[in-house]
């Protein structure tokens, strides 16, 4: 293990790729690597990019990474695509939109399957981001699965959350709803060369103006990612968000909130694993059948499981 960590810390990309695999597979070895590497991170600006399927997230991530490369920054990318709920297999196709970066030594791009996680991310996303952070990237771009109205988990993983919107995808009532729009630190109107882009921008502006006085209003950036347009403005808006967090002292607070979220998430997973290990399939089956037969309510059944592992 030490050899791989050593190679990793010397900047060996193959060592990085191998460590990510072990961390993603949640092996004991992977946890050891994470423990060794975690203290080396903490400097990267993590940026979440979320939005609907086909909104141009991958293309935007590719174009934004190219902008950071022009600025001499090193970029790590993690892109999540969905796993099958039935076979657990996945097609990971985000590299297709990022071909221009394929041979750039300053970029490392990794595809992840969602592996049953909710919220458009993968179960080990925070760990994989921590590994990329330890490798020394200046920016880490995290692309979610195509998200709908309620996939807000990315806000707990990334420092700055970018929400990608498109013209022609619904009226202003969609944007008035609670949920994903509330987590956006930067709003992007992508495919800005399509009809309706300016209408969408003014709808979003109108909505933001309804926010209570004194609350932060995320900037709205028009982009045409496929042509690389708007990337300078987007990079500036993302930088400005980080500076706001730093100067207001919110950065530390934000990191603590994210860490709390992460630690509780892991604790939940550990507890669930303990229950899985200590309960036989037959026991579990007997219990759930009682629930199915309305002989027992689901809360009492779950409490019995937790009590069985001393929780």
């Amino acid at each position, binding site marked *: 293990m030490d050899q791989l960590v050593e190679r990793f810390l010397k900047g060996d990309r193959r060592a990085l*790729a191998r460590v990510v695999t072990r961390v993603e597979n949640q092996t004991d070895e992977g946890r050891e690597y994470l423990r060794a590497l975690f203290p080396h991170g903490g400097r990267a600006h993590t940026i979440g990019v979320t939005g609907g399927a086909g909104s141009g997230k991958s293309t935007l991530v590719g174009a934004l990474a190219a902008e950071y490369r022009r600025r001499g920054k090193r970029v790590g990318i993690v892109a999540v695509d969905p796993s*099958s709920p039935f076979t*657990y297999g996945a*097609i990971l*196709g985000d590299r297709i939109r990022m071909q221009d970066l394929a041979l750039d030594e300053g970029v490392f*791009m*990794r595809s992840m399957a969602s592996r049953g996680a909710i919220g458009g991310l993968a179960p080990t996303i925070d760990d994989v981001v921590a590994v990329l952070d330890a490798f020394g990237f200046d920016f880490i771009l995290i692309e979610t699965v195509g998200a709908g109205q309620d996939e807000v988990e990315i806000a707990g993983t990334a420092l700055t959350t970018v929400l990608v919107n498109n013209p022609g995808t619904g009226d202003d009532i969609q944007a008035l709803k609670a949920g994903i729009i509330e987590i956006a630190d930067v709003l992007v109107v992508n495919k800005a060369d399509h009809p309706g882009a300016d209408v969408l921008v003014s709808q979003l502006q109108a909505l933001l103006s309804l926010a209570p006085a004194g609350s932060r209003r995320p900037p709205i950036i028009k982009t045409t990612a496929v042509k690389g347009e708007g990337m300078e403005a987007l990079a500036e808006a993302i930088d400005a968000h980080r500076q706001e967090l730093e100067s207001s002292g919110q950065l530390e607070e934000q990191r603590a909130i994210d860490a709390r979220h992460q630690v509780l998430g892991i604790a939940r997973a550990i507890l669930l694993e303990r229950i899985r290990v200590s309960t036989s399939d037959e026991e579990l089956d007997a219990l759930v059948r009682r629930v199915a037969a309305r002989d027992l309510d689901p809360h009492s059944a779950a409490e019995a499981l937790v009590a069985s592992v001393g929780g």
Partner: protein
Amino acid sequence: MTTPTAAKIRVLIAKPGLDGHDRGAKVVARALRDGGCEVIYTGIRQTPEMIAEAALQEDVDVVGLSILSGAHLELFPRVVEELKKRGVDDVLLFCGGIIPEEDTNALEGLGFKAVFRPGTNTQDVVKFVYEHVKK
């Protein structure tokens, strides 16, 4: 039984060269997906360097190359060379497409463990991958 979070076989499906027909590659990618693999699909017109770099970054267990142009004996050795250059020397290699029988030996010599031709049952590809990947 596997679980959603358990380790999966990771497969890179790539098309080197200039032919633009990727239906075969997509059919194989889909079959492997349904077989429970995580398939990284890079699309058409990949250079050997791009394929090798993707294999490195994605840390795949398997690389499958699809080709219809007839340039396999030109391009595949370069893919193998680029993989070696990056220290990616332990992946399972297979290929498919329009590849004459008489080229099979040459491809096996390069390290390709299977050559799949038109008419292959996709389940045979899935079976091949599961039989050959050390997990």
